[in-house]
């Protein structure tokens, strides 16, 4: 069996040939394209370490069959920074101590990027305490075994607020 698979990964077209349909998107990224930023924590949709954006939306790459996503555009943590300039969410995780061991961090960051997009699309603001709760709920698909949640939440709230302000200025 050989199955052609075409993906756009971090803006670059990648053509693959799978010898087996059992490959998940996560394995395609890690094992075939050697993009090991996306992590395999549980491989069962329970931890969020494998979070990537597919056609702009965050999903669990471990529960997506790669062949089913032929033609899709995928964004991984490797594609966030612009050269040495960190993405604002990456910078916020550093500024707010959003990690300890770092294993869950690529998934947390991709999830946060997805959440901020979702909030922007829904016209939600990040202003008061209830919105901090909204961020905590919105990030609940990402577990952190080190328990760095306090810093993670601060980082995501800060990044979301910064983005909202930048959006207001631009408007």
């Amino acid at each position: 069996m050989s199955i052609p698979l075409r993906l756009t990964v971090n803006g670059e077209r990648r053509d693959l040939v799978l010898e087996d349909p059992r490959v998940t998107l996560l394995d395609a990224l890690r094992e075939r394209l050697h993009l090991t930023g996306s992590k395999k924590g549980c491989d069962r949709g329970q931890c969020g370490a494998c979070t990537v954006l597919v056609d702009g939306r965050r999903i669990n790459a471990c529960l997506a069959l790669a062949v089913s996503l032929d033609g899709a555009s995928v964004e991984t943590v490797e594609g966030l920074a612009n050269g040495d300039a960190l993405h604002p969410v990456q910078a916020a995780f550093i500024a707010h101590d959003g990690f300890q061991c770092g294993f869950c961090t690529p998934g947390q960051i991709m999830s946060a990027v997805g959440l901020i997009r979702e909030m922007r699309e829904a016209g939600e603001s990040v202003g008061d305490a209830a919105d901090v709760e909204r961020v905590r709920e919105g990030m609940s698909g990402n577990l952190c075994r080190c328990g760095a949640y306090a810093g993670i939440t601060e980082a995501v709230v800060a990044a979301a607020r910064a983005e909202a302000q930048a959006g207001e200025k631009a408007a």
Partner: protein
Amino acid sequence: MNLFAYTRAASIAEAVTAAAEPGAAYLAAGTNLLDLMKGGIATPSRLVDITRLPGLDAVEPQPDGSTRIGALVRNSDLARNAHVAKTYPMVAEALLAGASAQLRNAATTAGNLLQRTRCAYFYDPASPCNKREPGAGCQAIGGATRIHAVLGWSEHCIATHPSDLCVPLAALGAQVEIAEAGGRRTVPIGDFHRLPSDHPERETVLEPGALVTAVILPPEAAAFSGHARYLKVRDRTSYAFATVSAAAALTLENGRIGAARLALGGVALKPWRVAEAEDALTGATPDAEAFSKAAAALVAGAKPSGPENAFKIELARRTVVRALTLAQAGTPARMPALPASPFSHAAGALHA
């Protein structure tokens, strides 16, 4: 995961033909099916990928006041759809209380209806399970049964259905549209899932190859938009299956209840809806006494399937009363930050 053949269906007719082959299964987002395949619980010989089928990914309000939800509409898109959020707020609230944002972005409407039980013994190929292997026995009976059924179970299977979405859909009397070799038909969602009885391996009314194409909310479901809530009690505030959940919806006329809709989740192998419970509310004054009566009617006949789940009967009763109380107070103007949570800070939903 076993090796399987992969087919991407281009039309409904092609899908139905391909999936009629013994051992074939439909693949939607795969968030349940791939999990089961990784565990060796599902071993399909062919996956028929339906994600590219045209015309199944729209939410379409109809001229008669009903709403047609395509089988491939993603859970997050359904929850954020302006018409759904406004007209059927408890459907949106139930969806947003389920799984995680990542899973909701992928999971489809039909996949949610057809997800399998979360019984730990079903998930463990080393345990006998009548649902996996008819006649093998049920390891859950006498085992760890905290998440198991208190209504509608049999001595062959005591599992529950884990879907949140199905609970408000059942309360609102949704219809499930099915395409099969002989044509199309619709089935009320209340008849779609089967109770275990002596054939727990038969989970729905779908024949092999049958494809769910849409879920349809009937015109009368729109009447409840002002007073409708979903309440989900779970072991953690987010990203956990329901221990018990309730969908409650009312219409209020001159201080009395015009019509009521009620269903329970997490207590049986299908959403639990009982006509007597809703009848008990019709015409009543919306107060604690009426709500308790309805809750009692809804759990009438409940029986623990193991010592660990006896608490769910009282919990179900209280969850129904709380959900009715919240519904009476009115659908919040804005979705609570913690949808369906008794710990939400949204007005009216504070933990009492």
